[in-house]
Structures are given as structure tokens and as C-alpha cells.
């Protein structure tokens, strides 16, 4: 439980810290930016036996993300919850290896951006075009792969050193 919480806290704050060191705008996305919190939600999925606790964690992280990083309310909570549902389904379906985890991570980040785009488009919060969405999605791939690989290897290394109990 503690390891899972530490993983999530690190990723959550990493999001803010990295944003202060990267130079990017919506029209000039950085190749080094991704949604670190979502990647961690996917990585820690295997440590949850109780699915409700897993979805609850995703929802709470989404709420905090809303509060600190996007100045919205509930939007990211719903998105993170949805992504947790999808990630959990595919984690159960695919075998636990570095390639499948990376595929799920990249797909989840894409889904996040696409859903944000659709929801914000429906509610007319802002007007963007699909080309911009594609640029943002493609620019997030590199860092998603790097961070997923690091977190996957780190979580496996820690689980060989200490026993990470399943959250029931």
C-alpha cells in the first residue's frame, strides 16, 4: 500500500515540477511531456485486488489533478476513473510484461487527450482542431514510453526487494 501511495505522490508532483522546466505551449508541445499520474495509475493496477479501491484511487487523483493542474472540477476525476476502467480491463486481458504495459500506457494517454478534446469541444470551453489533437498525442509518445518503462522496472525491482502486498 505504502509503495503504491509513494509511486502516486512522486508522479503527481513530478507533473508540476517538470512543467516548470519545460518550454511548451499548446501550439508547440514538448516531446518530454506526458500525464505521469495516468501512467502510474496503470503501473499500480496489478497491486490492487479490490477493484473498487483502485477506481477510488484513480478518482481521487483525478480530483487533485483538477484542483492543481487544470483548474477544473470533476473533469479529470471522471477521465481518470474512465481510464482506470479501461486500463484494468486490458491489464486483466494481456499478460504482465513491459511491452503490453507500454501499449496500455500510450493508448490511455491518447484516450485521455481524445476524451478531453471531445468533452471540451461539446461544452465549448475552447475551440481546437483535430490536427492539434494529433500533434499533442504524437508528442506524448516518447515520454510515455520512457516513464512507463522506468516505473515498470522500478516497481518490479522494488517487488523483488520487498514484498508488495496486494491491496484487498
Amino acid at each position: 500500500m505504502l509503495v503504491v501511495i509513494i509511486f502516486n505522490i512522486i508522479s503527481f508532483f513530478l507533473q508540476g515540477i517538470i512543467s516548470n522546466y519545460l518550454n511548451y505551449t499548446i501550439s508547440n508541445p514538448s516531446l518530454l511531456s506526458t500525464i505521469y499520474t495516468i501512467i502510474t495509475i496503470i503501473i499500480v493496477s496489478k497491486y490492487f485486488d479490490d477493484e473498487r479501491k483502485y477506481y477510488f484511487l484513480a478518482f481521487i487523483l483525478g480530483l487533485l489533478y483538477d484542483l492543481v493542474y487544470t483548474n477544473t472540477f470533476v473533469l479529470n476525476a471522471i477521465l481518470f476513473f474512465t481510464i482506470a476502467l479501461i486500463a484494468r480491463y486490458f491489464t486483466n486481458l494481456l499478460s504482465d510484461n513491459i511491452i503490453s504495459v507500454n501499449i496500455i500506457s500510450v493508448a490511455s494517454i491518447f484516450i485521455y487527450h481524445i476524451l478531453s478534446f471531445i468533452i471540451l469541444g461539446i461544452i465549448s470551453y475552447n475551440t481546437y482542431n483535430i490536427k492539434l489533437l494529433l500533434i499533442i498525442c504524437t508528442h506524448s509518445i516518447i515520454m510515455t514510453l520512457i516513464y512507463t518503462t522506468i516505473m515498470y522496472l522500478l516497481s518490479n525491482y522494488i517487488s523483488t526487494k520487498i514484498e508488495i502486498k496486494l491491496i484487498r
Partner: protein
Amino acid sequence: MARKKTRNMRLILIIILIIAIIIIAILSYTLTSDRKQNIFEGIGKDIIIEVEKVVAYPFDSIKKLFKNYIDLRNVRKENEILKSNVDELNSLKAANTELEKEIKELKDELNIEHVLTDYSYLNATVVNRNTNYWYNTITIDKGKNNDIQTGMVVINGKGLIGKVTNVSNFTADVRLITTNDSNNKISVTITNGESKVIGLMNGYSYETNDILIEGVSNTQDVKVGDMVYTSGLGGVFPSGILVGTVENITTDSYGLAKIIKVKPSVSFDDINYVSVLKRSDTK
């Protein structure tokens, strides 16, 4: 049996539809640009930002160390330039007093409400930038405790950045002028030193990184390279803040109005320090 199954399916569909409508309704409310943070959101954000500052401290220290080293290398050269500038300061000070007097007289004469000299500057550091691209906001480390209020204008040394949209005790959110928000049109003056043309900032082109200005008649004289400043009309943004320079001029499909693309003077991908403009008559 089949009828019961169909009825259940219909019930599930209705429930999903109701949930979807409720979610969209909640999001519509929460995503409106003028929604204010509630007290719990404010406290929560303050706490997390403070923790983030502590976590980021080692990284910031390393960054500052490198910056200091680079600054030190240039210090002798800068010192010589500054010495020569000091001599000019006294004469500038006298000229400034005279200009302030003139501005006051002209303001009274022209009945202009807010100009830059009516404001004091509060410097702030950007503690968080929106990581999700879509929202175009930054968070600064000054809030209600520093008398920051919603609607205050935010600039940096290069020009206009945006305005404060949400305030908590220790932080404030700033919406950048690069947001395509139809409720936030800003009146601007396009000038080449001789003539002045009034226009309206009407969005941002994410493809060319340009601010779009509309409402300028095709008969009016605007040239590439003209400077764009806030006009002060509307009462939110004081007059005289640099927005950018005219980069491209086209005509709308009816041939009646100009569509002007302006290169912003501020580099929005690298904002670290800003100044909040506080009216001198506010506390």
C-alpha cells in the same frame, strides 16, 4: 423472457443516458470560465502548491546555481553598462515627473479611466503551468494574502500575459491571452506612431502562434510592423500595455474588414516571472 430482456436493456440505456446528461451538465457548470473556486478547493490547492514548492526546492536550487554562474560571467560587462545608465537616471527622473503631470492633464481632458501609471506592480513567480495544453492557465505564488483579486491584469517585462481568474489565499490562476475565449475580447490600439486604429482581439491561431484582431475596417491604415497595445476601453485592461506587432494583414471574405495577425511580444512557452497590476487606489 425476450420482452423482459428488451425492457432491461431499455432501462440500462435510459440510465446511461441520464448519467451522461448529468455528467455533461456538471462539467458544463464546472468548466465555465467565470466559476469561482470554493473554499475547500482554495485550501487544497494552497496546501498542494506549498508541498510542491518543498519537493521542487532541490531542483530549483540547482537551476539557480547554474543561472548564477552564467550571470557572474557577464557581471563585469553589465556593471559598465549600468554605470553609464546611472548618469542618465536623474535626467529621466525629472522628465518622468513632468510626463506624469502631462498624463494626468490629458486623462482629465480625454476622460480616460485607467492608464498604466494608475497601477502598482506586484511581482510573482509562476509555480505551476498547465500541463494539459488545453486550458492555457498558469498559477502564480501570490493570492488573497497579497491583495490579489479576480480580474487583475498580469504582464511581464515584454507585454501582456493575461488576467487573474481564480484566487486562493496563497496562489492565483491566470488565464493567458492565448485562450480562444469568446467571452474575453480585449480592445486594442494599433499604432505606427502617427495614426491609431482601434480593434478587438478575437482569438488565437494555434497554427501560426498569432493573436487575431478583428473589427478593423478595410479602409483604415494598418501596416505590417505596427505596434499593438491595449486601448483601455472596456475598463479591464489599462491602456498602453504592449500586446505585439502586426505580422500579417488579410481581408475578410466580404472585403469589408481586415483580419490582422499579431505576433505576441511575450514568449508564452517560457514564463517564469510576472507582475500583477494593482490599482493604486485599491488597498
